[in-house]
């Protein structure tokens, strides 16, 4: 059986709302319009306007209200139409949500989910294409999840809503319409994935690729191409950027001895940089080649189709980088 990511998210919301009356959803166009991207379709009809709350276009205000409601013990799911708009509310996400449990020595927990599409879509230009994974995942107190497949979407969103801490849940608009196979287990309403655990999407022995969100699909496609050339690629779907599954990443690199990191966001201080640092810290002696980093170009997102294509990783970029880590003569490897 197959299910789109959109339906996976929708069903996860539906099931958690039905299981826990404290769960409610708020955001722009989530109700009568059925969601700007239809993730909340049908929920207003089913749960009514008290629990599916259309808001004005006032992110700072409604995010603050959501966080306050979480202080009070409700379990809000706050939708940002896209995460670009979360910048208007970022002070509440960081200072009001992430830090409260710590500042209050555990008195004020903040069980809230901030969700919506993140990163590049198609043709929407510089102000609507930013990836916020590395920013949010730098902040202690937050958990940051990045689903790829329908399994991820269902399992991680349910985990996020049940979690007692603030979770930033980064979806991808271009994945909403994609279908993935789903088992009976995944479809069961009790299904839930652990936070902080990566998934080996494809096992391999020559090189490790770490990826999250849409880039997992690209990594898998690159791995398929490379397998035909005799290179066995292990693809890690990070699923959680904070906590980052350092153990899984390092275990894989200790096996393959080579690493390519992949992400759509800006490169500097990105997820790839952190993974590189983590592997250098914990598995330096196992690295047979320099870590290769594939990331969004270091420019604001251009609109023109040809430039936009250059601004985000393409499968050929991944293939090329993998070949470099595998074949290039590396002085250290040579002497080892």
């Amino acid at each position: 059986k197959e299910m789109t990511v959109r339906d996976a998210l929708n069903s996860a919301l539906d099931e958690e709302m039905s299981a826990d009356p404290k769960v409610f959803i708020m955001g722009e166009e989530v109700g009568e319009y059925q969601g700007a991207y239809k993730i909340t379709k049908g929920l207003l009809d089913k749960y009514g306007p008290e629990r599916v709350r259309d808001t004005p276009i006032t992110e700072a205000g409604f995010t603050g209200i959501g966080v306050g409601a979480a202080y009070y013990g409700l379990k809000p799911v706050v939708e940002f139409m896209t995460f670009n708009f979360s910048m208007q509310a970022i002070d509440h996400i960081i200072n009001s949500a992430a830090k409260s449990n710590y500042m209050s020595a555990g008195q004020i927990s903040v069980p809230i989910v901030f969700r919506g599409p993140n990163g590049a879509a198609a043709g929407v230009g510089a102000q609507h294409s930013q990836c916020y994974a590395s920013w949010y995942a730098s902040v202690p107190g937050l958990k940051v999840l990045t689903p790829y497949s329908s399994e991820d979407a269902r399992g991680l969103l349910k985990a996020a809503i049940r979690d007692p801490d603030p979770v930033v849940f980064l979806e991808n608009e271009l994945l909403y319409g994609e279908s993935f196979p789903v088992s009976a287990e995944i479809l069961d309403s009790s299904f839930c994935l652990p936070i902080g655990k990566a998934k080996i999407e494809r096992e391999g022995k020559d090189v490790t690729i770490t990826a999250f969100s849409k880039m997992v699909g690209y990594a898998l496609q690159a791995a398929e191409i490379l397998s035909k050339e005799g290179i066995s690629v292990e693809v890690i779907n990070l699923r959680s950027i904070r906590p980052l599954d350092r153990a899984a990443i390092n275990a894989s690199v200790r096996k393959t001895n080579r690493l390519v990191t992949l992400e759509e966001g800006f490169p500097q201080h990105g997820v790839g940089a952190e993974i590189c640092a983590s592997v250098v810290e914990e598995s330096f002696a196992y690295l047979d080649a320099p870590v290769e980093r594939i990331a969004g170009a270091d420019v604001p997102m251009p609109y023109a189709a040809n430039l936009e294509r250059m601004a985000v990783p393409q499968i050929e970029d991944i293939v090329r980088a993998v070949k470099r880590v595998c074949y290039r003569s590396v002085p250290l490897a040579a002497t080892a």
Partner: protein
Amino acid sequence: DSIITVETSIPFTGHNIEPPSRTVETSSFELLTFFKDMATMRRMEIAADSLYKSKLIRGFCHLYDGQEAVSIGMEAAITRKDCIITAYRDHCIYLGRGGTLVETFAELMGRQAGCSKGKGGSMHFYKKENGFYGGHGIVGAQVPLGCGLAFGQKYNKDEAVTFMMYGDGAANQGQLFEALNMSALWDLPAILVCENNHYGMGTAEWRAAKSAAYYKRGDYVPGLKVDGMDALAVKQACKFAKEHALKNGPIILEMDTYRYHGHSMSDPGSTYRTRDEISGVRQERDPIERIRKLVLSHELATEKELKDIEKEIRKEVDEAIAKAKESPMPEPSELFTNVYVKGFGTESFGADRKEVRAVLL
């Protein structure tokens, strides 16, 4: 060209201010220009709709048809030393500020000849030399930015004003109230133009605002409610507002207007409002038809002459599209230009940094 005197459709309503007179002066030339310019805007947006449907325009595309009188009336009252800044619904504002059809279509299709060389896209048009500062995608952000332009005008003693356009949805944004307070404290020549088309995406104004009387929302700042479908009323209001702003600081103009299209291309625009509502506005309040009637009733042109103008416009638009299509996509090297004005010779990187990198000059 003799002066023609016309009454605005309805009286202005003032908040904390005595509204201007309903009697507007115009001329044959002005009315015919209004007609031609609005018809061009209308045609341009309809053509953009088609180009989008044939996948030549990507991403978002927010059309302005229905709201033309706001741009046209405003331009008739001001000069290009005055500044305008708006949101993403910017194609016609750009045209009003002296942009061309070719630049518009080329930008929409992401071509070199576009007003932002294809790098900005539908939401990011600018024409700085004529006082147009964009083209902004973040709801509400253009209001403080516009107050900043007004700050600059006052700082430089330029005796000019800035019009910042925002929607009924944007009118609830907190940064608007922050900017308004500072503009009032500092007497900035800032004119906040709320284009109330009654919906922010799929949300009717009253569902997003406890008080939908946007011209009153400035509280201590005066406001004026204007029929935004009547170009002459808009002109009168903008003239009045400019004089006010130069002397007394900020003022809010609420333009009662309507967008015929959905919010952007993915919105059919018909789930949250009735077809009757839309056709009712078209029949009774259409800004182009209002001018057509004035032209005919004052016998400034015949029905046939107006139809010929429209035919001519259609041709111009088609030619502009053809020309825009001839313009190539940007050079790949453009990926790395304009990140900075001054790049200090540092390196910048593509997705595969080992293969694609550039030195920023």
